[in-house]
């Protein structure tokens, strides 16, 4: 599988000791620089497996040293594991000898004797810089020196010492872990270090919930509205098995030839596809480049090339007004022969493009999709108005929104009273220009909010992390496309208790009941009247 080794020209994610991620495209024969952590030749990573941790060798030498898992773990724990084995629990508790009988033998060490003094570190800034320059042991020596020259180190509790060591390790250790760039790691990378607004601040847990609720699985046809730069599309593609692709050397360098050659007439598959509707002329799927697929210059062997179709809203809603869907003028075969080669090729290219586009549009308009996934800035109501009718019965509808409000408004459009209004008063009354259209075709609208809370798990120091990312909460709307029966239906069952039937007049949410007769009976006082209403 693609995850087993690092192949050339793939994107990887390097995680530095500080936790900061870096995305790198591994091109052979270059040097990859990690800023203050140093640099190394890219060939040192080539064909090595993922998930390993490396130390960057010190300057005269160029290369990497594999760090064993035991060593990595030891550095993360900061020497705490032995204490736990001894069963002392928390490190600031000291087991006091048997002579103090009163307090069960435990005493808390405090920091009352510790004096915060910036001068306790004897190494100056300049000296540290110097050490970093000549640094040996990939930064370990520097950390050791820092610890040695700290005058108040003996005053620190073991707990504090560990924390100090860890902090310095994070800062100076020249080490990184190679991780595969998957949708999950890409999302967290974009969210933490890039511009999260461009992916609508979609967190991993939200993406996961969307994929599950939309019942995304191999073999389905999915209708997608994605304004997150392709993050949602790539997440779906991953579930459909469309992301794994090995670019071969020949493809990388023969792209120009491919462009010139007539596109091989590949039959478009009818299942396991993603159909993307985009608001602009061209889709924005720039994030797919991390998975070696460039929409502007697609690699024909990439699974997405045939399984991803795109069309814009104009083509879907008003196809007659779209110039790209107009059939190009037919040139009779006799005249075609007389044309110059370039012109003839242009003619065929145009013709083929038209054929492909019109087929995609026709397919989309025919509908029958297995699911609808939305992550958009646009108004959700309008999107659903045009897309829900294209779904199969029982298909799931999933829409992401950064803010609760827009989703709440959407859920209200499918409320029981709206549905009743639509059925009773008809389309003319209930429909409005900006609404969702027929509300009866969506069942059980539900709103989900989910959030992951990270924990720090260190021996004796297990607790939730102190800070987490705020920003958009991110909510997910779901519903099921259903096929209502023709004619009038009544949402009646035998579930109304007798209580309800008895006080026929004072029904709170039954609209027929309200209009009826209570004019005749005159209650004696407003207060009593109020009580009755309640």
């Amino acid at each position, binding site marked *: *599988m*693609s*995850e*087993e080794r690092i192949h050339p020209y793939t994107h990887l994610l390097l995680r530095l000791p500080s936790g900061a991620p870096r*995305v*790198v495209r591994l091109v052979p024969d270059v*040097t*990859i*620089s*990690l800023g203050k952590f*140093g640099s190394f030749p890219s*060939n040192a990573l*080539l*064909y090595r*497996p993922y*998930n390993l941790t490396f130390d960057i060798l010190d300057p005269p030498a160029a290369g990497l040293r594999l760090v064993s*898992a035991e060593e990595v773990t030891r550095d993360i724990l900061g020497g705490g594991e032995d204490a736990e084995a001894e069963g002392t629990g928390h490190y600031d508790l000291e087991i006091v000898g048997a002579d103090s009988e009163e307090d069960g033998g435990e005493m808390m060490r405090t920091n009352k004797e510790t004096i915060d003094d910036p001068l306790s570190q004897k190494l100056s800034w300049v000296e540290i810089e110097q050490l970093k320059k000549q640094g040996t042991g990939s930064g370990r020596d520097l950390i050791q020196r820092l610890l040695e020259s700290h005058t108040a180190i003996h005053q620190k509790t073991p707990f504090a010492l560990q924390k100090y060591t860890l902090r310095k390790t994070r800062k100076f250790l020249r080490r990184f*872990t190679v991780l595969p760039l*998957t949708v999950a790691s890409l999302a967290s990378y974009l969210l933490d270090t890039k*511009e999260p607004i*461009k992916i609508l601040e979609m967190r991993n847990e939200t993406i996961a919930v969307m994929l*599950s*609720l939309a*019942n995304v*699985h*191999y*073999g389905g046809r999915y209708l997608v509205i994605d304004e997150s730069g392709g993050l949602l599309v790539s997440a779906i593609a991953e579930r459909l098995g*469309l992301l794994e692709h*090995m670019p071969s050397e020949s493809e990388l360098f023969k*792209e120009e030839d491919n462009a010139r050659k007539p596109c091989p007439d590949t039959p478009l*598959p*009818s299942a396991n596809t993603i159909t993307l509707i985009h608001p602009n002329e061209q889709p*924005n799927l720039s994030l797919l480049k991390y998975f070696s697929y460039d929409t*502007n210059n697609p690699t024909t062997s990439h*699974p997405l090339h045939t399984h991803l179709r795109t069309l814009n809203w104009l083509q879907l809603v008003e196809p007659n007004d779209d110039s790209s869907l107009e059939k190009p003028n037919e040139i009779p075969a006799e005249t075609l022969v007389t044309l110059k080669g370039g012109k003839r090729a242009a003619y065929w290219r145009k013709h083929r493009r038209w054929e492909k586009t019109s087929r995609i549009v026709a397919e989309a308009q025919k509908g029958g999709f297995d699911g609808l996934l939305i992550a958009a800035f646009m108004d959700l109501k309008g999107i659903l108005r045009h897309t829900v009718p294209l779904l199969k*019965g*029982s*298909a*799931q509808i999933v829409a992401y929104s950064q803010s609760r409000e827009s989703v709440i*408004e959407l859920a209200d459009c499918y*409320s029981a009273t709206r549905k009743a209004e639509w059925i009773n008063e008809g389309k003319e009354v209930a429909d409005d220009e900006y609404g969702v259209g027929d509300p009866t075709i969506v069942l*059980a609208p539900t709103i989900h*909010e*989910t959030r*992951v*809370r*990270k*924990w720090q*798990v260190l021996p004796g120091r297990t607790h939730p992390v102190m800070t987490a990312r705020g920003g958009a909460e991110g909510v997910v709307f779901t519903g*099921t496309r*259903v*096929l209502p*029966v023709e004619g009038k*239906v009544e949402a009646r069952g*035998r579930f109304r208790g007798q209580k309800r039937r008895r006080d026929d007049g004072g029904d*709170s*949410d039954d609209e027929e009941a*309200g209009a009826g007769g209570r004019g005749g009976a*005159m209650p004696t006082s407003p207060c009593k009247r*109020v009580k009755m209403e309640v």
Partner: protein
Amino acid sequence: MEPVFVKSLYHSPSLKILSRLDPPNNQQIFFPFPITFTSTPGSGTFDPYNKAKMPETPDPDTTPASNPLPPPSAFLHTPESIPYSSSPSIIHLKRDLLVPLSFQSNGAQAETHDARAAAYSSKGVLNTRFGDFPHSSIVGIPYGSQVRAAPRTNNEQNRKRKRMEDADEGETAEPVSTGFIHVLAPTAELWTASLPHRTQVVYMPDSSFILHRLQVRPGSVLIEAGAGSGSFTHAGVRAAYNGFEFHKERVQKLTDEIERHGLDGLVEIVHRDVCKDGFLVKRMVGEEEEDISPEATAVFLDLPAPWLALPHLTRRARPTPSLPTSTGLTPSPSPGPTTSVGKIGEAVRICTFSPCIEQVTRTVNVLRKLGWVDVEMVEIQHRRIEVRRLNPKGYEDGAGPRTVGEAVQRLKWIGEYREHKRKKNPADSTITTQQNPTEAWKTQNSREKKGAKDGKIVTRIEPEIKSHTSYLVFAVLPREWTVEDEAAAQALVKQTTKSVVNAPVDGNLKGNGKLKWKGETEERPISKRQIKKAEREKRKAAERRLKGEEAVEDKSGPPANEGEGEDVPGTECGNDETEVAG
């Protein structure tokens, strides 16, 4: 071509072979953990080099016609119309009231999965509080259809009901109301929601995140230990399904449920105590049955003591010497779910699911000792939001005054009315000079509900939230990387690259995370000649610049704000600008 297995450790009370172990109350069995491995070798491995061919392989739309295999499960491929089959459909009665039901063609008792559903369905008719629905009116229509109740049939239940209603006068006059239901195609989520909760269920927010983090994709092999009521199994199969099904080698111990749902080519269920016996699967190798590794890439452990099972998940034939002695484990020669020696292995991801923090600390401790890295623990908080409109008349809005002004007004009226009443001669009831305060109240505050768009939209959280499900511990076991492997990799590098060790920093591709965000195409040389030329220029430029200096060091700086620098390539690269141009 190696088979791909989807594995599941499944334990279900409906399992026949388990009945011996069932507690008297026929509830969940906790121990030993039945493993049910269902072998569904997909015929294709995900050989990266064959990957390009993948898309042409089975197309669910076309294969069933030419293929003698039964059609894929309704969980994985929604049929055009509701079939007579053992796979359940989900009957949506109302929000949060779902019943799984399957329809049998012979008109016999429909197969139901729990007592509740059985109560709903008798003799080919689904009886609900919303009316009666003969199965024949449901089968054959498309999934997702709304179904109107049939006129009442003369079955026993209705006769009883009628008797009761007859006794209640006036009720008979009311016409029989026709309710409706919706029939939905089964999904893992709907199935879980419709389950009678036999054991602790892994709910959607957890299972979705676990599958996302475990990188379960089509073709993955997933081990699930302690499968409870199978909700995670369904979600896992959905993620790992890659269109291949394998029917040749059926394992004897298939559970009813998986088979009924048509997932039996995809899930292998083995009943076993994994903490003692490990994860190896019996498989026919040639003539003999051997224990082989399932070669999984993802593991999900929902066990009370996951740390006991962890030592079995190892690559080495011999367990690591650093095994924690406290677990009291005897070393067993079981190579874990991962690949055998000699084959390039993949990293294995694990997730353990345990509700208590003590379980977590122990698990993490053992994970770290066994060489797992990237240990991370999270918990998931999930809420469902309910949306409603404040009813202008209703209780929620306060039937009383809504503002201070209204309160004052009403109090005034009450006073006036009392005055009016006192003055009024009780004998002379016809004189009503003053308007009744109630009427006045009503006309002044037009609180009549006008339509669906009246009233403020308000939200609430669902009545009962799951404030804690379990802690999820994730970890990765990287593949073993031996000296020989390293040598092989180096040889491969030498063979395929120019083996430049001290190459100049490539400005365009620097590993500083500054790849452009928006549609920026990397300037990639397009012909070999151009590559060479660029290479030469770069080297020259670097030599010029680096003369006298030591190894190339790049200023790192905080990630530059891309907004401004976006249009000018290389602005954030500072001194590397010359190279970018080349």
